[in-house]
């Protein structure tokens, strides 16, 4: 299933869902990275993500780093309980922008 993206001005919101593992990361990157490279601010909505492993977390880290390099920002929105737990296990809650 393709992930949904909405755009409003300079803001792109990417809605990830389901289980994000290494089988899904390329799809997520292909969706997120072009918006970052275009200098847009990105919201990644994680409300409907039921499971995320290290591959998914890596996409969040790479997105954050690319955004900083591009002078823009990635914010994680409506983070599901299961994803928040993994972000905290990775000790990234102070590094990534969580909302």
């Amino acid at each position, binding site marked *: 299933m393709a992930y949904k993206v909405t755009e409003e001005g300079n803001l792109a919101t990417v809605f990830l869902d389901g289980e994000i593992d*290494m089988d899904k990361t390329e799809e997520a990157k292909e969706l997120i990275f072009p918006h970052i490279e275009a200098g847009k601010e990105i919201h990644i909505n994680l409300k409907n993500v039921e499971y995320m492993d*290290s591959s998914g977390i890596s996409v969040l880290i790479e997105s954050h780093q690319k955004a900083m390099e591009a002078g823009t920002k990635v914010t994680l929105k409506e983070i599901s309980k299961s994803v928040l737990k993994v972000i905290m296990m990775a000790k990234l809650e102070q590094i990534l922008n969580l909302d």
Partner: protein
Amino acid sequence: MSSEKINSKSENKDFLVHSSSLKDVRSFSRDVFDKFNLSQDLKDELVLAIAEAAQNIVKHAYQNEETQDKMEIRISLKNNELEIGFFDKGRPVEKDNVRHRKIDDIKPGGLGTFFIQQIMDAVVFKEGSKPWINHLVLTKKL
């Protein structure tokens, strides 16, 4: 095709070594932990550790190459100790090269091994007995 053997304390199943199998690995693990009556939080952590170890087999032992090889996962519970075994026929693991991410090193790689070590009590790489090449053992006292 996969084979499955079940008894009250131990279950095993084999999976094609491919990223598309990870969903089945998680599903198998969840089913086993449901039978072991573990708490939801513990189940979620253990499923993550198992999926990360299986992912490492796909990514590192087989370097994402297409194969018809299977990996086997065995989950056992004995005297309140959980033992999870992974068997594969990929490249031999060089233990010295298995490193997890440092806590303050913010980069995408090495997180899976970091998670496994956070969740489990012990992580032991063994030489597999034939036909296996690698045998990884994760243990946790419940």
